[in-house]
């Protein structure tokens, strides 16, 4: 089971802050996960695919859509951060 987290405006886009999902075993990268999540939600797939969105895999920033999920327990989708 993979925990998927949505932050900021992506939480609004997803309609929830998190979900527990069991992606099929052939979902191996961030890009594939987005396509799988957004199979029936093209608006959400589009929002998650924006270049400004950063993805953290088990709390490590992923390099890009080809980053391997490698059995991650937690995947976070983060729009541009704004601290301070």
């Amino acid at each position, binding site marked *: 089971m993979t925990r998927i987290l949505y932050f900021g405006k992506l939480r609004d886009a997803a309609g929830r802050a998190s979900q527990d999902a069991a992606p099929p075993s052939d979902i191996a990268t961030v890009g594939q996960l987005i396509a799988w999540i957004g199979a029936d939600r093209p608006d959400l797939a589009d929002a998650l695919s924006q270049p400004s969105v950063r993805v953290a895999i088990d709390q490590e920033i992923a390099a890009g859509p080809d980053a391997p999920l490698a059995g991650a327990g937690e995947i976070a989708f983060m729009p541009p*951060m704004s*601290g301070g």
Partner: protein
Amino acid sequence: MIRVQSDPIDAGAMLDGFQSGRTDIGAVVCFTGLVRDASGGAHVSTLELDHYPGFTEKMIAGVEDEARKRFDLIDVLIVHRYGRMAPGETIVLCAAASAHRRDAFQAADFMMDALKTDAPFWKKESGADGERWIEPRDQDHADRARWRASR
């Protein structure tokens, strides 16, 4: 030291605690960021900050580490709030202590630029004109880039 909290930030107490009882500190620069009742012309009644527990602390700790590497610092304090807050409340307090003032000034400046673009917080403003998510301004990205160019 890093603190991420939903409780209000008591800026004066934080500053006193940071600098009191030490005789090796010559300079402290303490930045506080506050909620304004207007933002880009829009009225603000509430600011709500979303964060990512664990990861937010980790990323802020990275900012502290980089500041300590770049500048000659005696101590660092970053206190960041999350949750709902009203105009006038303190969102963030970021302090740097050094022997001489230039290191403290540059470190506080650097840390705030880094927090603005690299700290996992997401801000939603609410007011008479509705709600909106806030993203870093072009100026924030330009400020952050200053430190990539140097050193």
